[in-house]
């Protein structure tokens, strides 16, 4: 929250400084607030549907992929959301997932087919728990507002600095008396114009990283099983696929930085997500499942660092961990990697309009919708099937 306030103050400072340089500090402030207000309006009416359409996400129902839908519903119950988010699958081999929705009542969760194939049920629960907590903690709203503040600062700084450079020669108004004072204000304004966007961006990234830690801790609290998310993150970190349709503006909402370079250490200050290895280490060092346990595990590797969890989250009592999925007692056989791949593949074929015909020899025929023929022959055993 301090960081968000810092960003807001930076915005007001920029507005005021700009105003001062042109004559009236208050007018500059008002203009800054007006610009910010209009940008808010524009962002508010831009639906999540645009983002989902850009990612080519396919909406699924409870019958399309029961396991995924059930896991989302379990996390909805564990987190206390009022309404289950819409569930989408993105046809992409990259391993990623994101959440969207400014209002918890109108939210969506999307996961790539690559990730869905790779994870077992515990890991899937961890990832979905992380995404659902972004919705529950209103991170989407927070990051949107922060990006608007950031955008306003950048706009003001850009136009302000251009205007100042071009009008720098003439002293606009001498109501302030000596030209000396005017010059100093001028210089300060220019410096602020240059530095403010940089600082604002750094603050924005810092806020994003903090919310990522909070989402990891929330996921551990909901599932009572941080090892699930840790092992999922391990799989994600080992992958080198780049997500094709990632968007700069919504990078904070993905579970792993979609613009992460696969080699070399990530530049920590300008990244929206903390390094994956560190997230895994903290999750595995947790002794319990509460936010306080996450805080303690975080402080183990950050001796000098400040707090990472918001103060309000640390008041709850102790929360114990559970062992790996108790479903093992129910004897539920977990689908293997191959079965999961087939499951997701078949679902995507179906959603693209193909018909799935099971041949007796074990082959599954995928028939396009507009084939024009009345029957097809199985390529393996030659048996004819009517469409």
């Amino acid at each position, binding site marked *: 929250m301090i960081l968000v306030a810092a960003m807001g103050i930076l915005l007001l400072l920029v507005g005021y400084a700009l105003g001062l340089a042109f004559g009236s500090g208050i007018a500059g402030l008002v203009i800054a607030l007006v610009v910010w207000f209009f940008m808010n309006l524009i962002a508010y009416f831009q639906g999540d549907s645009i983002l989902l359409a850009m990612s080519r996400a396919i909406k699924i129902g409870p019958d399309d992929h*029961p*396991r995924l839908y059930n896991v989302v519903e*379990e996390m909805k119950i564990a*987190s206390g959301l009022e309404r289950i988010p819409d569930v989408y699958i993105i046809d992409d081999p990259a391993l990623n997932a994101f959440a969207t929705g400014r209002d918890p009542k109108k939210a969506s969760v999307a996961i790539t087919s690559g990730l869905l194939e790779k994870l077992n049920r515990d890991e899937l629960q961890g990832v979905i728990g992380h995404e659902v907590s972004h919705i529950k903690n209103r991170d989407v709203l927070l990051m949107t507002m922060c990006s608007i503040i950031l955008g306003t600062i950048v706009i003001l700084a850009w136009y302000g600095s251009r205007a100042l450079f071009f009008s720098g020669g003439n002293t606009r108004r001498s109501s302030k008396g000596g030209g000396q004072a005017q010059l100093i204000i001028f210089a300060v304004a220019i410096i602020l114009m240059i530095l403010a966007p940089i600082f604002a961006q750094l603050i924005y990234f810092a806020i994003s990283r903090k919310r990522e830690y909070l989402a990891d801790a929330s996921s551990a609290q909901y599932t009572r099983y941080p090892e699930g998310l840790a092992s999922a993150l391990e799989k994600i970190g080992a992958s080198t696929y780049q997500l094709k349709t990632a968007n700069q503006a919504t990078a904070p909402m993905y579970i792993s930085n979609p613009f992460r370079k696969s080699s070399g250490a990530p530049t920590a200050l300008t990244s929206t997500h903390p390094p994956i290895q560190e997230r895994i280490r903290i999750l595995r060092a947790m002794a319990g499942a509460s936010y306080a346990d996450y805080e303690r595990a975080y402080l183990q590797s950050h001796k000098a660092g400040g707090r990472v969890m918001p103060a309000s989250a640390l008041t709850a009592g102790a929360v114990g961990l559970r062992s790996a999925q*108790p479903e093992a007692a129910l004897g539920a056989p977990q689908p293997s990697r191959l079965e999961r791949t087939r499951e997701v593949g078949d679902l995507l074929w179906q959603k693209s309009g193909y018909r799935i015909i099971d041949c007796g020899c074990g082959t599954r025929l995928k028939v396009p919708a507009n084939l024009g023929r009345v029957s097809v022959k199985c390529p393996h055993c030659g048996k004819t099937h009517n469409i």
Partner: protein
Amino acid sequence: MIAVYVIAGIIVVLCIFFIFAYNGLVRLRNQVKNAWAQIDVQLKRRHDLIPNLVETVKGYMKFERDTLEAVTKARTTAQQAIGSGVGAQAKAEGELSSALTRLLAVVENYPDLKANKSFLDLQEQLTSTENKISFSRQFFNDSVLSYNNQTQMFPSNIVAGMTGFKQSEFFEVKAEAEREAPKVSFEQPKT
């Protein structure tokens, strides 16, 4: 003159604080009630899944009639226990869980059944329902914790005392039946 304004200001601030604290308590208490109702929703969902399970399994497991009957009986008992108090309900649900666990342990002996798609779908639904039951209990206990904290911690405990908000109880699983490990018998089915 100033003193009057100051006192009026303090009174206004206190009123505002009182309103916020009261509303917070109401919200948390309603969340507790809602969470309790959610547990019942999930329990009922499990009841509804069982007849389907028994039908799917019956054809394959001709020699496990006792186990199947135990499951059906436990389900009826659990359905009748709804509304007869938390203790009785928890006990009946615990016995249903045990009966289900025994049934699914026996399924290991029937590879045909394990490969059957409708059985696998059902098993996923059952697994998920068990998870949802435990998550809804978990959320209930978390809600009770938040609510109890709010009724006890400093400034809101004054408001709670004044307006009669009492603490809630946690949902503890005291039924021994739920905690015992399933006993699997390795007798050969009689041909």
